């Protein structure tokens, strides 16, 4: 747990000498809504609340930058513990911290180093937290290495947006790195392109045909996958492969090496074995520093309006000189998270599911044929497959009001829709 730090010295004169230069005066590209001077400083230092997802390579950098720029109420979530291979870049951790929670150690370090900053760690999963938790922040910065976690965070923030409540719009600033390459982007949920919109830009993970692995290995990687994909489950049965367990890696390495020798394939090493089975992505301090700084700079500009913010994607390639590309990634109409249609529907309390389907089918402007309906937790009516159609058929006669609470949401899919349609149901008197 985070320990209460000793009484912190108040801000000292000159502390914000550098930052105040851009908070006291607008620049040529500063929006007119910028409130130069005390107003913006007060918001940044006393009112804003920012959430950092991930306390790893990017997270450590992000926390340090935010603390120095004047954010004083910072929260950080990370489910991981510190590993020795983190120490070449995660600069808030020391060898003695190996095995401890990243979020907790990072938070303590920042509070010790930067007086007056409160960092609240959570050692756990982002999925443990509910909407009310995320609603308390003004901004969210993600420094993650997982596609899945990013998709979840992105969808959660898109869902939080309530047009009636401007503050429900939480800008999401997302960073990612891989070796000398990286990207930083600003997502304004429902307004700009979101993470899901750009899912197809992701590099495909290398996967080898399973028959190549089984029969015609040519590369050392084929031998390693043979060991991990086929031999491990066959020989070790239900024992789950733990890629952090040296005994497990050692076993795979030996099996892979024996196979490589059998086929006269060169290049199976311990390091490659670990790289392939853990899908290790090279990571260095410098790239993380660039991307984290780019993210924090956007957070600072958005929180203070002191300068224009990134619209909306910055991509860096540092292998041949410093090459970067800043562009606007376009929102996708058929994005399953931020695209598609949403309809308000007011139904009579007596309207049945079947009647609702008829209403949808008859609606000229949306052209739905054979819709399937569900709420976030259960199926209402599925056109197929037969077992599910049969299972949901009794619902056709039920009243929608028995299945969906007022204000509740219904997801509609149909072959004729680009992706899906969401209905917000309310009931007339």
């Amino acid at each position: 747990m985070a320990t209460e730090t000793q009484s912190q010295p108040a801000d000292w004169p000159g502390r914000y000498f550098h930052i105040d230069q851009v908070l006291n005066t607008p620049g040529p590209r500063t929006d007119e809504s910028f409130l130069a001077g005390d107003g913006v400083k007060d918001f940044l230092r006393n009112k804003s609340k920012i959430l950092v997802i991930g306390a790893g390579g990017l997270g450590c950098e992000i926390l340090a930058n935010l603390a120095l720029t004047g954010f004083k109420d910072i929260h950080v979530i990370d489910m991981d513990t510190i590993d020795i291979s983190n120490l070449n870049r995660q600069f808030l951790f020391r060898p003695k911290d190996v095995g401890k929670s990243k979020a907790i150690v990072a938070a303590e370090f920042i509070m010790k180093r930067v007086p007056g900053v409160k960092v609240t760690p959570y050692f756990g999963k982002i999925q443990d937290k509910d909407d009310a938790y995320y609603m308390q922040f003004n901004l969210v910065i993600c420094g993650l290495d997982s596609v899945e976690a990013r998709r979840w965070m992105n969808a959660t923030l898109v869902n939080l947006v309530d047009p009636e409540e401007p503050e429900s719009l939480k800008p999401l600033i997302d960073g990612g790195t891989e070796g000398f390459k990286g990207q930083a982007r600003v997502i304004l949920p429902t307004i700009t392109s979101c993470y899901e919109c750009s899912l197809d830009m992701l590099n495909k993970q290398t996967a080898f045909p399973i028959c190549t692995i089984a029969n015609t290995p040519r590369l050392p990687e084929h031998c390693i996958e043979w060991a991990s994909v086929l031999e491990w489950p066959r020989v070790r049965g239900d024992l789950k492969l733990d890629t952090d367990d040296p005994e497990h890696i050692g076993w795979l390495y030996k099996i892979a090496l024996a196979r490589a020798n059998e086929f006269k394939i060169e290049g199976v090493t311990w390091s490659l074995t670990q790289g392939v089975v853990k899908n290790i992505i090279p990571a260095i301090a410098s790239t993380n520093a660039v991307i984290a700084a780019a993210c924090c700079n956007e957070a600072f500009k958005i929180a203070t309006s002191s300068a224009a913010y990134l619209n909306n994607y910055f991509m860096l390639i540092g292998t041949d000189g410093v090459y970067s590309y800043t562009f606007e990634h376009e929102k996708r109409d058929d994005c399953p998270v931020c695209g598609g249609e949403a309809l308000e529907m007011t139904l009579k309390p007596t309207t049945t599911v079947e009647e609702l389907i008829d209403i949808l089918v008859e609606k000229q402007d949306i052209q739905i044929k054979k819709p399937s309906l569900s709420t976030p937790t259960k199926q209402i009516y599925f056109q197929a497959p037969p077992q599910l159609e049969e299972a949901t058929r009794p619902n056709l006669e039920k009243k929608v009001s028995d299945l969906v609470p007022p204000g509740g949401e219904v997801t509609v899919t149909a072959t004729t829709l680009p992706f899906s349609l969401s209905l917000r149901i309310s009931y007339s008197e």
Partner: protein
Amino acid sequence: MIKIWSMKKNEDAAAKKKPKTSAAQIRVQKDLTELDLPPTMKTHFPDPADLLNFTLTITPDEGTRFLLLHISQSNSANNTSGMYKGGAFVFSFAINTNYPHDPPKVKCTQTIYHPNVDLEGNVCLNILREDWKPVLNLNSVMVGLQYLFLEPNADDPLNKEAAQEMSKNRDQFLNNVRASMRGGHIKGTQYDNVLVR
């Protein structure tokens, strides 16, 4: 922040609030409710409320030719179509919350004698691994699986012995297929009886 907060107000306030349903969940709903399967394939949900885990039973027939996209399996077999007729082959599907970024995990639940399915139930189908992409869907995977029974591919095998038999001694292979489907032993391996009862 004020700048950001004022942005939404300018937008058409037509309630754009999206449902809490995850993208993976909606996508699975879409895939499942739009399945267009021939009578030779049936899905079964042990828990109908759980859309992410189910089985597919394939009962191959003579081999109606389907127009197949994205599938690079052999179409060379000529006299073998229908060799798995009479069997009911059950595959488990496990979809994770990162679908469709991640492909569904598919395994054969029975021990079967097939060049492209190993004794552990691993299936060699390109779109389940190296050629998976999010534009593919559950329908493409299921059609691909069925194709394996109509046109087994001996050139890129998972069960090497079965494949060798298939290319070297087709009659023996067909005998083995039939014996295995009845639950027989072949070269020391006991196969599951998969005959439709």
